[in-house]
């Protein structure tokens, strides 16, 4: 058990904390019920509550802190890793955008500047191509197409004049959108290049297309540049995922790239972490406007990713170890505390039993004189009657008359009965300590109790009056315990009143639907106001010298155990009333019964 090894100084504090928790969660946890069977279960519930609540209270902040750190680390890490890639991707994209826009603009300028007839002149077209090639570079050939897709003039290294393009997809695209940039393809000599085509529409509504082939090499030179190092690969792919420029990792033009590298749909620019093969890469994507190209930038970042993974691993490990540690301490501590609480409860139970027993014996002792007298009287009568019987036989010469013998024997038997009633009452009183419920009529029980005390009352000429309201229900309670309660209270009342003028009134009445009250009022010495709150405390006594100070505290304990309450009211020198309220059926305060 972990708790046993916890340093001693922490325990009392923790114990107090757990006690208050216990009081919070387990209603009436401190009202220990002796001999109740549900005890073990209650300690289990107590421990579960303590463990759960402590765990929640201590783990929630830990979880929150860990998640927060994780989030912060991840944010920092992303910033450090992604930002340079995002910048480099954006710069390169601008360069390519510019490269394409420059050439497109040049073609658009030519198409507006020169008429279809001028451009259809092969000599003129050749001159334009020469100018373009020298001003911009990369232009390989030029073609002029009429609206039917027929190439009317061509300038360049190939013999393409008169070729028809009407049913090619790019031609319908340029007709609709006015401009077209093609994917890269290998020409007749195996050199990669691509096409830019622009459309021009006359005022009369007729239109034609100027088509230029551009050497990819010119574009490739724009890709890369400052900021590109050995860890970085940068290339273009088209919509089908085919390389449009050579890649360090994936080979030459028109090779396919792994699907994991394809750009996220519907995003013009993004940076993400991707795995190619077993290598982690930071990948930047940027789509190039008005072209089938997407720029892809790969940065190998094994070290950074490993650093991040290490931090993340440490965080998770820290969290798990902390959780295990906290849970073990809580579990161990709670088990230990609950055990302590249970031990204390058991000790209390034992001492309560002992006190109850002692008190009962003391009560019996107090009653002994009265009881002895009560038994002595019938014994004396028996003695005299039997003696007279013998006298009659011995002293009168003739056998005694039948009626006389029968009268004496009847008197003897009735005296024996009287004595045994007393002994039975005493036995009934001292029989059991455990709670045992049975239906009880309170007026009858009060009469039984008075049976012990009426002698003393009558010798001291103390008046005892019992009144019972009509229809007071029977209650389910413990006879022996209730006898002890009322014996204590009425005995106290007897002790409080003076001979000859003393008066004790016992009233039995209903109190609400499910309770019955017994009020014991005496006109005795009364109780000081200051003492009213203390008289139910153990060892409080005003009977200096002969009181144990336990009577009323035990009475209080018993009444509580039976689910009732006891209160006291008094005016010093005038009267005192003890009010015992008892439920008609046992309430939840009562546990099981092992008795």
């Amino acid at each position, binding site marked *: 058990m972990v708790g046993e090894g916890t340093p001693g100084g922490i325990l009392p504090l923790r114990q107090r904390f757990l006690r208050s928790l216990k009081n919070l969660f387990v209603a009436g946890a401190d009202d220990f019920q002796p001999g109740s069977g549900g005890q073990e279960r209650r300690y289990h519930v107590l421990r579960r509550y303590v463990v759960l609540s402590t765990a929640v209270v201590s783990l929630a902040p830990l979880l929150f802190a860990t998640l927060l750190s994780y989030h912060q680390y991840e944010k920092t890490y992303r910033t450090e890793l992604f930002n340079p890639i995002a910048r480099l991707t954006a710069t390169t994209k601008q360069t390519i955008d510019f490269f394409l826009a420059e050439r497109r603009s040049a073609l658009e300028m030519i198409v507006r500047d020169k008429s279809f007839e001028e451009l259809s002149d092969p000599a003129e077209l050749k001159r334009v191509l020469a100018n373009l090639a020298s001003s911009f570079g990369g232009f390989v050939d030029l073609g002029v197409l009429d609206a039917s897709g027929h190439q009317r003039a061509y300038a360049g290294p190939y013999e393409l004049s008169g070729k028809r393009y009407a049913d090619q997809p790019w031609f319908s695209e340029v007709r609709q959108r006015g401009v077209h940039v093609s994917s890269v393809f290998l020409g007749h000599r195996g050199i990669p290049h691509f096409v830019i085509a622009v459309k021009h529409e006359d005022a009369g509504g007729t239109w034609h297309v100027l088509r230029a082939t551009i050497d990819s090499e010119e574009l490739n030179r724009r890709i890369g540049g400052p900021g590109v190092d050995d860890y970085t690969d940068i290339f273009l792919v088209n919509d089908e995922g085919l390389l449009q420029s050579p890649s360090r990792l994936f080979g030459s033009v028109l090779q396919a790239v792994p699907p994991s590298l394809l750009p996220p749909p519907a995003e013009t620019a993004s940076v993400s972490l991707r795995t190619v093969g077993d290598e982690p890469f930071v990948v930047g994507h940027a789509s190039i406007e008005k072209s089938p190209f997407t720029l892809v930038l790969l940065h190998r970042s094994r070290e950074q990713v490993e650093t991040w993974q290490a931090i993340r691993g440490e965080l998770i490990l820290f969290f798990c170890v902390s959780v295990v540690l906290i849970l073990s301490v809580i579990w161990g501590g709670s088990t230990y505390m609950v055990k302590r609480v249970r031990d204390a409860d058991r000790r209390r139970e034992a001492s309560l039993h002992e006190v109850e027993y002692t008190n009962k014996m003391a009560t019996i002792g107090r009653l*002994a*004189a*009265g009881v*002895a*007298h009560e038994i*002595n*009287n019938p*014994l*004396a*009568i*028996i*003695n*005299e*009657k039997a*003696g*007279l019987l013998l*006298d*009659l036989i011995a*002293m*009168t010469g003739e056998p005694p008359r039948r009626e006389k013998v029968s009268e004496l024997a009847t*008197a003897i038997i009735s*005296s024996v009965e009287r004595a045994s009633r007393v002994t039975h009452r005493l036995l009934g009183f001292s029989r059991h300590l455990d709670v045992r419920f049975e239906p009880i009529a309170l007026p009858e029980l009060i009469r039984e109790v008075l049976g012990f005390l009426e002698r003393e009352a*009558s*010798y001291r*000429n103390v008046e005892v009056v019992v009144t019972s309201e009509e229809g007071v229900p029977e209650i389910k309670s413990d006879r022996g315990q209730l006898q002890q309660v009322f014996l204590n209270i009425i005995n106290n009342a007897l002790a409080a009143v003076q001979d000859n003028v003393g008066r004790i009134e016992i009233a039995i009445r209903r109190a609400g639907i499910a309770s019955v009250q017994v009020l014991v009022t005496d006109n005795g010495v009364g109780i000081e106001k200051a003492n009213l709150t203390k008289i139910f405390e153990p060892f409080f006594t005003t009977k200096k010298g002969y009181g144990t100070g336990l009577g009323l505290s035990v009475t209080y304990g018993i009444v509580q155990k039976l689910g009732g309450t006891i209160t006291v009211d008094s005016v010093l020198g005038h009267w005192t009333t003890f009010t015992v309220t008892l439920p008609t059926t046992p309430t939840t305060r009562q546990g099981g019964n092992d008795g």
Partner: protein
Amino acid sequence: MAEPRILIVDDEGDLAFTLAERLQLRGFSARGVTSGEAAIEVVQHESPDAVVLDVKMPGTGGLSVLRTLKSLRPHLPVILVTGHGSRENAVEGMRLGAFRYLMKPVQIEELVALLHEATRGPGGGDG
């Protein structure tokens, strides 16, 4: 000599009357009463030779009856009868001038002997 007149006082009528009957069988003129008041009444009007008095009685207790009897007739022998629980009362009764005390249950021969002693003795029979 006439039969000694004995008054028996006990709140248990059964006891007082039976004891009286037994004493009558033994040559006493005995009668029983069941209260202190009745006893005082009898002593005032019939002047018995001795009184057998139960110490513990309701109402006027045995000792206060003893006090009254002694104030009425200082030389009247009073034999106290007491239970085990009230021996202190008996001692107090001796101090108040009781002749002797007996524990319940009373042995008849012992009582008879005491009564003879009380009614024949030097202080007895002042009538």
